[in-house]
């Protein structure tokens, strides 16, 4: 078991909530992707999870246990930016980690660094941004940690090494470990994560299994007739999450019942109707862009 449970987490900075009532669970054997635009509260969430920042309210538990210093034998963290010591060599960082963590395997760290193409004799200040990320990843993945918290673990890495990091995450999950990570590269999240959560303004706006989210959400697209047509009864349906229009192309983001909406759109006079699958990027973009206002405006514009 290596489950991470976040309950009603809140973190205020100067009266502004960076994270607001966040509740999540990262089950064991799972790669969990945390998505959100810049400033959504992903890094703050990680910091609160690890006690680096004090939560204003809420609770984080690791296998039901509150975070204690000893918990870090089981938890590994890769921060968003390099926190390595510029004046020391990579080998000295390996030694530092060896002294700090009982389960750390220096040989594995060296192997990983070799795979990432990092010369461990170099001082950190001589490394590129991507290499620094690689060092942090290598150290984290050599600790046999049961829970990994990775904040943009592929930042600055080239595509080959990005793929390598994703493989490492999937391998760790296969061992029964929990991984929660954030990334702005949604393709990577889609490739590695089984579950995702999307944060916006510190609040959880969407969460679930990637496959379920993709299966449930479809785009129904059609071409409106010249002179407009009525979408009455369609946009007001609770299953329509969004309604967008580009020129005469109308797109409905529907949750469940895509064939039914395709039929209703055809009945309203639309032509060229297609039902499209959504990828994770579509789901993310629809989730974080201002939906309510757009839906209302588009509906009004389309009215005869």
């Amino acid at each position: 078991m290596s489950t991470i449970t976040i309950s009603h987490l809140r973190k205020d900075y100067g009266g502004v909530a960076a994270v607001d009532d966040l509740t999540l669970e990262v089950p064991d054997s799972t790669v969990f992707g945390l998505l959100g635009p810049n400033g959504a509260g992903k890094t703050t969430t990680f910091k609160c999870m690890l006690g680096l920042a004090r939560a204003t309210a809420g609770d984080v538990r690791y296998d039901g246990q509150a975070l204690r210093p000893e918990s870090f034998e089981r938890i590994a963290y890769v921060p968003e930016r390099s926190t390595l010591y510029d004046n020391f060599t990579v080998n000295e960082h390996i030694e530092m980690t060896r002294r700090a963590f009982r389960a750390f395997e220096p040989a594995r760290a060296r192997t990983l660094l070799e795979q990432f193409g990092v010369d461990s004799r170099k001082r950190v200040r001589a490394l590129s941004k991507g290499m620094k990320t690689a060092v942090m990843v290598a150290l984290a993945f050599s600790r046999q940690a049961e829970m990994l918290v990775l904040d943009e673990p592929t930042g600055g890495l080239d595509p080959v090494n990005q793929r390598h990091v994703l493989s490492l995450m999937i391998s760790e999950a296969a061992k029964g470990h929990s991984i929660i990570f954030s990334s702005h590269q949604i393709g990577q999240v889609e490739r590695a994560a089984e579950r995702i959560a999307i944060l916006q303004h510190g609040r959880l706006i969407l969460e679930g299994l990637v496959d379920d989210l993709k299966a449930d959400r479809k785009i129904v697209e059609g071409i409106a007739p010249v002179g407009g047509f009525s979408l009455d009864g369609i946009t007001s349906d609770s299953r329509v999450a969004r309604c967008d229009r580009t020129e005469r192309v109308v797109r409905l983001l529907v949750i469940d019942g895509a064939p039914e909406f395709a039929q209703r759109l055809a009945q309203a006079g639309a032509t060229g109707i297609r039902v499209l699958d959504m990828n994770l990027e579509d789901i993310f973009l629809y989730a974080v862009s201002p939906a309510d206002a757009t839906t209302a405006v588009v509906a009004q514009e389309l009215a005869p």
Partner: protein
Amino acid sequence: MNYIEWLRVRNCLRTTAIVLVVFVALAGILRISLSRYMSPQQWAQHIGAEPGTTKTQITLPDGTKRTILDNPNERTHIVIDDRGRAGTHITLTEPSSHEHKNAENVQIGGIHVNESRHGDLSTTTIDTHGAVPMLYFMAIADVVALIIATMLAAPFAREIDGHLEIAFTKPVSRVRYALGVLAADVAGIWVACALAVIACYICELFFGTYRVDFSGINSRAILMGLVMPAAWYALLCAATTWFSRAYGAVLGFAWPVAIVVGVLAVVQASTPLGLMVHDVGWVLSRLDPLTYVKFAGPDANDAMAYMGADFARRFGIEILLFVVYAGLALVRWERVEA
């Protein structure tokens, strides 16, 4: 002991060692340059060359090479005992002049000079086999230790400046982590102190005796010399932890501020404003570990004694300051957020 902090300490000590080696090398060069002036044989040869001087050389049963120089015209009589590694003992008898004092006993490092007057003759004995008081070494070593203490005195501020994610995700409590850091730094300061003492001792070997006096006031000097830099370090450590964003400025201004406060505390003023400034300086100086170091002061018999008569009180205050300042740093460290 914290490994990363020890690496910082190690780098600092490496620099210290290089500087000290340079000083020792310079001392060696100086010693070689002065060798013709420091050799008893050279003196004897020089004095023996004066008209009317008779020179006698014998070897005593203990191996001492004795040179006797006698000049009846000048009324001078010199006995030079060269004991090799055991030093040189010189007795010089000559007519008194206004430069001679009735009795004087001077010690400079390992060289003891005793002067006494008997009627119109003065006798001066020079013994180069005296033990060097350890406090001489400690006075120099403390300067080195204070410099190192200042260099190391922002451990937590450096962690706050971009490394908290490493520091706070280790399986140790923040307090334990901090104690490891403090231990590494204090050990580093003391090692620097020891290196400086060793360097001083090597220099002393170049010029004189190999004997060092650890007794009495010298042992006090060692104790104070170890505690005072640690207290100074703790003061700066607390200041840099609380003002971590400006830790460079704190370290940069520490010495000037300490000096100004020290001066204000001792300078007497006559105007009301001057008195007030003096009082403020005096109060502030009580918080400064440097205030409690006294190289010399009157003892109970009104004789000058290193470290002063109230050594125990001042030593206790230094320890107290170390504990208080280290505690303040820990309090802040406990509350830091990444």
